């Protein structure tokens, strides 16, 4: 027998897939209007990612941080915290792992690797902790705090990478390379695809279990849906909210950590195409379900990379993807609103 939550996960999947299909159809009309080769453009957009093993590897690399951050954001949202700080938490994790990796380069991998990863996670969690504790203790709006922290963290990493750990032999704001013995290995059989992707998949499944199959998960969701109820049934609601933010930050920090260890092998100030914000959209489109987040993140990765191939092969600009993703968000929210009206009618009766 299939449990209701699992059905819920499947339903949560059906919704975005329907919207995605519709988006792609509408997008095709657009492309047909501006391009002589709409079919080629669309083929590039959707399937060029699978043309070669190296394209596929880049696709997985693109998806990895998105999956991790959006799964982390799921914890925050379920706890009722609108965490817009994925970007800052990601950068905190990436820069910390880089600094630790470079500073202690002589340590053996057995020690340095876990040290670098854990400090990256801790840095992300710390950046997530600030809005959490401010919200719980002082009622400060988390959206403002997380947005501000994004700027603070990004400017700080910019300082570090330009003034302290800049690779003076390279062009641009990039750090020295990390010692090779702590690089994350590739997925067996797919050269250059970070094995961090497999970690992300496992974590997204595990997160579902934690959120929907443990008392702790139920307590987090209770705190997120009705804080005053959670208090009344004896849940340490404030603690749950803060822990959820630590996890959200930790996931984003981990994403940054895995990025520098497995993909970039150094910190680049411009490594992120706003992963934090895209992951937020992924989590929302997945209706705050960690397993569905995995798929929405894959879709976004597909679009981001596919757009580049499309621009190379045809004259369709890659910014089309921004339009498509905007259309997708519109369709998803429209669908949700319609559903809400139905429920209301039913309740009224």
């Amino acid at each position, binding site marked *: 027998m299939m*449990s*209701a939550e699992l059905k819920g996960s499947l339903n949560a999947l059906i919704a975005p897939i329907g919207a995605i299909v519709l988006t792609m159809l509408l997008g095709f009309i657009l492309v047909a209007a501006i391009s002589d080769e709409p079919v080629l453009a669309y083929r590039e957009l959707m399937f060029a990612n699978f043309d070669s093993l190296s394209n596929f590897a880049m696709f997985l690399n693109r998806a990895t941080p998105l999956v991790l951050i959006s799964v982390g954001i799921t914890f925050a949202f379920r706890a009722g915290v609108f965490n817009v700080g994925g970007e800052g938490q990601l950068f905190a994790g990436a820069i910390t792992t880089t600094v630790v990796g470079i500073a202690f380069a002589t340590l053996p991998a057995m020690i340095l690797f876990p040290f670098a990863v854990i400090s990256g996670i801790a840095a992300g969690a710390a950046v997530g902790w600030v809005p959490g504790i401010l919200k719980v203790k002082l009622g400060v709006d988390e959206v403002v705090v997380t947005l501000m922290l994004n700027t603070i963290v990004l400017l700080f990493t910019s300082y570090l990478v330009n003034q302290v750990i800049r690779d003076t032999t390279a062009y641009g704001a990039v750090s020295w390379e990390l010692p090779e013995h702590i690089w994350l290995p590739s997925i067996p059989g797919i050269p250059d695809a970070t094995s961090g992707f497999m970690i992300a998949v496992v974590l997204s499944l595990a997160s579902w*279990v934690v959120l*929907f*199959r*443990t*008392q702790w998960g*139920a307590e987090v*969701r*209770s705190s997120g*849906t*009705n804080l*005053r*109820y*959670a*208090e*009344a*049934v*004896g*849940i*340490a609601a404030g603690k749950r909210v803060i822990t959820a933010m630590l996890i959200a930050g930790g996931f984003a920090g981990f994403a940054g950590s895995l990025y520098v260890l497995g993909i970039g092998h150094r910190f680049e100030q411009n490594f992120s195409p706003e992963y934090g914000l895209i992951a937020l959209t992924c989590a929302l489109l997945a209706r705050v379900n960690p397993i569905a987040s995995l798929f929405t993140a894959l879709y976004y990765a597909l679009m981001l990379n596919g757009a580049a191939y499309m621009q190379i092969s045809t004259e369709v600009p890659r910014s089309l993807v921004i339009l498509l993703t905007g259309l997708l968000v519109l369709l998803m929210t429209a669908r949700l609103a319609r559903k809400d009206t139905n429920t209301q009618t*039913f*309740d*009224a*009766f």
Partner: protein
Amino acid sequence: MDHDNILVLDSIGKKFGDIVALENVDLSIRRGEVHVVCGENGAGKSTLMNILVGIHSADGGKIFFNGKETKIRDPLAAGAMGIGMVHQHFTLVPSMSVAENLFLGHHLLRFGIFSDHRTMVERADILIDTYSFALDPEAIVSSLSVGQRQRVEILKALVFDAELLILDEPTAVLTPPEVEELLKVITNLRDRGRTVLFITHKLREVKAVSDRVTILRRGKNISTHITKTVTENDIARDMVGRDVFLTGRQGQDHGMRTFGESVLQLENVSITNSSGRLLLDNIDLDVRAGEVLGVAGVDGNGQTELAEAIAGLIPIQAGAIRLDGTDITHVSVAGRQEVGLGFVPEDRLDRGLSSNMSVAENMAATNYLREGILRRGFVDKDQLTEFTQKGIEQFDIRGAKPDLAVASLSGGNMQKVVLAREFAREPKALLVSQPTRGLDIGASEFVYSEILSAADKGNGILLISSELSEIFALADRIAVIYSGCIMQVLTREDADEETIGILMNGGKEHAA
């Protein structure tokens, strides 16, 4: 057709899918009367009214208005005919003034373009005076109390001269004094020649205000009476379909009941808020095993603080709370539950439930460990379902399935979910706050019997209620709270409604 009738419904039927909401309902409303339609939740009252104002259309039957057969297509058509409705949930724009709300969508214009603000205010003022509503036409709606907003809603219907005014459960959102005011308003409307159709399930209001009463049950018109000729019990019987016992312990021989040791004690409990005002002043209470101690009082005299202090949700500044001999003054909410406290909060949607979560998760919230729902740290779905199913059956929670969101249940069934959760722990002391607020008669009766049987099993129960009839039905002793003080504690034999009523208004100094 009797021309004296303003509205006649002839065998109206309505189905939603397979569900029959209304079946052959006949109803005639006489010009100038106050006619109450009552019935339990889900009896079809709201559906019937929605048909009258054109929100739903009937599947069968005829509607005669002023003697002519009519079809009511939409709310605008209903308004044009002279049927105005005041919905339970307000449809006002909070940021606009009273006058602007009254003329919303029909703004009076100057030169055909500009809003004629002055005339609208004048017209609103005349209207307010006519019905002596005591409103400022230029006041912003968001600054008004709930009772005042409701009057604006009523005016909104009257401004376009509604002959027939439909009020859909208007008292559900009001405090008792506001209810009194509203009942006066309704009588006043009738005296000025309006016809009022009033929907409620509160018997006291039926008796207080109506000329005739029609009772719906499961979509059928069960009976129509002249209100003076029937008793509250007659109406209740028609509504529920059997004899109803809301009398509780009244009429029972009190001498037969014996009480055990004290299970919940409050000693000199005081609470001050951040600005230094005393919210609870030296409260002493003592609930014994097997006893229901009722706390009567007008809302807002410290009841909320009292309940939250006992539950452990707000700290107390002085005094001590003991549960079953253990000092729980500084124990956490969860710790108090562990010692044996059950808590039914006054507002089920606020503190009682998380309405977007499932029935199962709401019911299990405090019971995971105790009921063996966890296996090796993970939720055992089968156990959870079994536990919930047991609760659903035991408490007769209609329409509930373990995986269904609580929000889809009716108020009475939501309250039963709270009871099922709190009773599952078999708490030694049970703190019950406003347990039947918003519930219909059938559900209230069920809640009463559960509370009394818990007392019979030897639990000590502290019942906080602003409904005096509820206090008299359930309590063995009655404590009256006024302005944060316990005025006096009386046994039920010594108490009568008048004495309690005087105490509730602070009419007496601290008793010796």
